[in-house]
């Protein structure tokens, strides 16, 4: 996809500057990345940019966005993204939330029950599993945690290679620290979120990797049940990082939904 070009800018929001990468044209799509941050480009992002204006912000305190020392919750991040949408005067936005970014997207949807075109949650954190547990990254090395998110270790190798550069490891540590700052306790869920999801009128697509070892599939089932207008799609052969392991399938679901 050589024709896809990306630009990036620092958006000076009142709450602090935010790094946003942008590509494509068409209806706007806001992609919210995982707790591990995001590679600068992904085939998944490029594929979406063929039919949409795609915005991929770095969450406040992650990758290229500087750390807001005041920030204390995932809901704060959701509010910052509402401000980004207003600042950029975007309308009819589709939210695509990946893992931790899915939790942010779900919070955003509850804040504006009719405010979005579509809500796509992929392996989203945010809800407490009833049977299993959300994997605790505090107990795992940076690499082990990323590996855990892949069903197929060959896919991990394709994206991350043999040895992640030390600079990337340091960034993974900074991202993890920011995750701790806003999602330490309760770890990776918001006990009030389930009570607010039922008001969301935005049509929702909930996608889960069959082999997600970071957020159990039961959380996908709960999201699909709690949201009044949702369908659940389970992708075989994918783990938590569906957008890296099965990008074509995920794009097809998003475009078709």
């Amino acid at each position, binding site marked *: 996809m050589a024709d896809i070009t990306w630009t990036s800018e620092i958006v000076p929001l009142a709450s602090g500057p935010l790094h946003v990468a942008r590509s494509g044209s068409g209806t706007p799509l806001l992609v919210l990345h995982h707790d591990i941050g995001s590679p600068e480009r992904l085939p998944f992002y490029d594929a979406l940019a063929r039919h949409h204006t795609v915005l991929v912000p770095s969450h406040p305190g992650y990758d290229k966005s500087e750390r807001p020392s005041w920030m204390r919750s995932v809901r704060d991040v959701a509010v910052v993204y509402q401000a980004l949408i207003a600042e950029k005067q975007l309308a009819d936005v589709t939210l695509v939330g990946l893992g931790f970014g899915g939790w942010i997207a779900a919070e955003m949807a509850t804040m504006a029950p009719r405010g979005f075109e579509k809500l796509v949650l992929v392996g989203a954190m945010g809800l407490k599993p009833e049977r299993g547990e959300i994997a605790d990254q*505090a*107990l*795992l*090395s*940076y*690499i*082990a945690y990323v590996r855990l998110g892949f069903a197929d270790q060959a896919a991990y190798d394709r994206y991350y290679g043999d040895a*992640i550069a*030390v600079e990337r*490891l*340091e960034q*993974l*540590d*900074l991202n*993890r*620290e*920011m*995750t*701790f*700052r806003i999602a*330490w*306790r309760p770890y990776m869920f918001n006990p009030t979120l389930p009570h607010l999801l039922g008001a969301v009128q935005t049509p929702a697509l909930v996608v889960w990797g069959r082999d997600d070892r970071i957020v159990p599939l039961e959380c996908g089932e709960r999201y699909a049940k709690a949201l009044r207008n949702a369908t659940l799609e389970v992708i075989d052969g994918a783990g938590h990082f569906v957008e890296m392991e099965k990008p074509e399938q995920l794009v097809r679901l998003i475009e078709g939904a």
Partner: protein
Amino acid sequence: MHLMYFTEQPMSAYDEQAGRDFGATALMFSNKHFDPVAGSRLYNEYLEHYKLAEEVGFDGIMLNEHHNAPFCMQAKCNVFASILAAMTKRVKIVLLGNPLPLAEDPLRLAEELAMIDMVSKGRLVSGFVRGGGQEQLATGVNPAYNRERFEEAHDVVIKAWTQPGPFRYEGNHYHHRVVNPWAVPLQKPHPRVWIPGVLSKETIIWAAKVGYPYIALSTEIEATRKIWELYDKVAAENGHSGGPEFRGYLQRIHVAETEEKAMANARQFMWMQGEFTGLAHPVWSSPSGYFTPAMRKAFVEFAVGRRSNPRGADFEDQIRNQQIIAGTPKTVLPRLRRLLEETRPSIMGMWASDGFVSPQDTRACIRLLGEEVLPAVREIGKELGLWSPFEANAPTSRAFPEPARPAGEV
């Protein structure tokens, strides 16, 4: 000089091989390996050792605490401090210390410490620490706010000790609508506070700014000198001169009747397999946000197995660089003199044994230290002008320039 006896209170009675097989002995190493029968015996042995340390002439007993690890059985140093407050008569009870960030309620801590100070008739030295890396996880406390919580909890404790209540405290991490504890310390302005540490510059700088003595925990002589250079520089910038009464050092030192026996027992200092050496877990011991940002590169490489523990060194190296001293009373003294001459501390903890050293050998070591080493060290201290904060009537802190002493005493 102020000379203290210290033990980590090792819980050596567990299946060591199980620890090796698991690959770590902290945090997630199952507590099914903890034997409360052995625990009961060991706690009582340690109490006997503390009693003996007072008898043979130590000035203080240094206590600490750790969580979820066999290398230290004290899960709450205030418990042993309370026992010693009633059981001992003369020694200072030196807590190095209570991990402030782990406290959900620093006011409770202020009350407990005030009670210990009153029961001991004003013998409390209340040190504070950040807590080890894995302990943030063991207590569910956010490592990313460790330093903020440390400073804020300290603020709560000192205010609760020194400002008449009731008043309100609204911080970033601690919120107390009513601060009015019905127990305040006997010592005024408040018990002395000493701050121990290993390698975080931030802690040294903070202690120097506030004006508390800093206690270097078994660092190499050269590293210790660098600590004092930094401490004295920051102290000077903040209006005090630093120097011996602000300097403490924890020395691992085992003495016995023969060199061979001392050396064999000193190897047990390497037994500690938890937080700081040996089988420290590279991830659990260094959660994100906990370690000093200047060391980020070293710790992330450690976490993924690309380098050894930035906190560790092997036995021979530690003997060579005097982080561990072992020998007969006669042979350890030149090395202690070197330490005192080159780093000039006035407070010294003697960590006398660890691991599987027998209670008999530990008692013999305490006795030899008390009868033969302490008097000689005191002489060296006098010769070098190493006056402890008590001897020098040093200020309690920058905020409270008067020396701490029991109320009513002059």
